[in-house]
């Protein structure tokens, strides 16, 4: 174990003079920016963890004069609320991160896709955006950002669904490949990054890739902003060094009676107490977009699972059958087991269905329903049945 304690970090919310960052990047070659981010080993902070430098280089290598930078601020994963805080506290840094990406990729236009639930942030963001655009003019860097609002659809956090939504259509995910870096928004090469990822890019340009790499582990470099909620005396937003075990996390945030931690929200994994010690929070263990939800022994894990399945059933876009029908059947299935209409063996059938959904669903939503389903059923079977 590399780390014995939960270590707090203050890089994301640190106030930074964006002007200094911009001075630096306009002098840098675009490829040098990609290289610096690549060397930092920064992985996307939205949950999927794709290497940011690689994403930018793919988009940079595409020919064609129209490219886009998109900031994914459609933070909808249950238990995640850190992007709201970042946008509220340091909006200038988010825009600055987009400017870095625009220089690296060669894009002149950027979009922030903000979930409709966060509409109250718009006046603050617009105020900051005016200052940002003035700075762009000062530096003679041709880049403009437009804010677009979502309208209450979880699936629009999926990158290709988000593009569909900006383009004015139903937020139904596209087939992949082609990936956004070649055919993205309006069919053009697009680098789409999570809010937090863009701020990490600012930190990397400010302090250098080697400084960023000093924190974290080989597979999970740097720090991460966590959204902590549930049965904890310390709910809130915390930037922590990556690489801690669930046990270390629970020692810091638990209420002394933690029986399970849901890492990564409804689409993440449920870690039971017996696995706290061995499970690392990060890409080598359980990855997370930041959602950490603690449950103590008073909670029924059936209720937790039912709540998640209800969520997915409503938020499935309905486009592909495995996800649309699968979510409904999982929900009906656990209800039937709970009522006693089906015996406990039926849960094995449902786990198989969840695995089929993982293989056959078109996008990350249907593919990840089985994460929570499988891990809760496996570890808390008796709570589902009785």
């Amino acid at each position, binding site marked *: 174990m590399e780390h014995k304690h939960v270590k707090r970090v203050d890089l994301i919310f640190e106030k930074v003079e964006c002007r200094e960052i911009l001075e630096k990047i306009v002098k840098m070659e675009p490829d040098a920016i990609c290289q610096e981010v690549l060397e930092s080993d920064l992985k996307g902070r939205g949950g999927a963890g794709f290497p940011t430098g690689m994403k930018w280089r793919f988009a940079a290598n595409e020919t064609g004069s129209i490219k886009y930078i998109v900031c994914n601020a459609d933070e909808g994963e249950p238990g995640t609320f850190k992007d709201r805080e970042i946008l509220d506290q340091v909006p200038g840094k988010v825009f600055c991160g987009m400017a870095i990406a625009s220089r690296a990729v060669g894009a002149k236009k950027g979009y922030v896709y903000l979930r409709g639930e966060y509409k109250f942030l718009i006046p603050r963001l617009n105020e900051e955006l005016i200052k940002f655009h003035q700075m762009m003019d000062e530096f003679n860097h041709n880049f403009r950002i437009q804010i677009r609002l979502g309208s*209450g659809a979880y699936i629009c956090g999926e990158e290709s669904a988000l593009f569909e939504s900006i383009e004015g259509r139903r937020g139904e995910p596209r087939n992949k490949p082609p990936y956004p870096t070649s055919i993205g928004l309006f069919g053009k090469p697009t680098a789409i990054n999570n809010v937090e990822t863009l701020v990490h890019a600012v930190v990397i340009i400010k302090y250098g890739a080697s400084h960023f790499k000093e924190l974290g582990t080989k597979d999970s470099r740097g720090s991460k902003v966590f959204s902590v909620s549930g049965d904890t005396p310390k709910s809130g937003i915390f930037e922590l060094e990556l690489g801690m075990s669930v046990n270390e996390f629970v020692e810091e945030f638990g209420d002394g009676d933690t029986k399970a931690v849901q890492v990564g929200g409804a689409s993440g994994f449920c870690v039971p107490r017996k696995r706290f010690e061995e499970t690392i929070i990060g890409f080598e263990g359980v990855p997370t977009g930041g959602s950490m939800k603690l449950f103590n022994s008073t909670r029924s894990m059936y209720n937790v699972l039912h709540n998640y399945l209800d969520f997915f059933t409503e938020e499935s876009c309905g486009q592909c059958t495995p996800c649309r029908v699968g979510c409904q059947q999982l929900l009906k299935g656990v209800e039937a087991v709970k009522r006693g209409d089906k015996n406990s063996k039926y849960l094995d059938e449902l786990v198989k269905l969840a695995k089929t959904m993982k293989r056959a669903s078109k996008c990350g939503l249907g593919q990840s329903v089985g994460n929570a389903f499988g891990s809760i059923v496996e570890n808390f079977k008796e709570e589902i049945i009785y």
Partner: protein
Amino acid sequence: METIIENEFVRELANKHGRSRESLIPILQDLVVQNRFLSKQDMVDVARELDISAADVYGTATFYSFLDTEVRGKYIIRICKTISCAMKGKNEILSTIEDIIKIKLGETSSDRKFSLLEANCIGWCHKAPAILINDTPYTELTPEKVTEILRDYIRK
């Protein structure tokens, strides 16, 4: 007369946002801000302005839970029902709200002042339970606190 006024507003919105397909959702969002929901006539008018089919407008609108196609009140209360809020007393808050504004979940008051709806995670889990009234979040609710908040809205 009302139809003509609506048309003018839709035209105004199309002038403001543009008439390409990407303007559709911002136009619909502004219509919802104005009227709290999308009427059939509005959707037909938007389709005409953007030169797309009304079915396309309807199909897009109905995908998004905030683009309501049913009549809604001036104040739309959305109560978060996802896990953290459910764990921290969402049901108690819901019944308090139902008692005060005297409508059930999913209903709109007859004076069209309030609608009461559920929402999936609205991003305030650390301050659960939470609701949105139109765009404004209210968090760490107790029955007393939500009562006070709603009394203010009733007086408005």
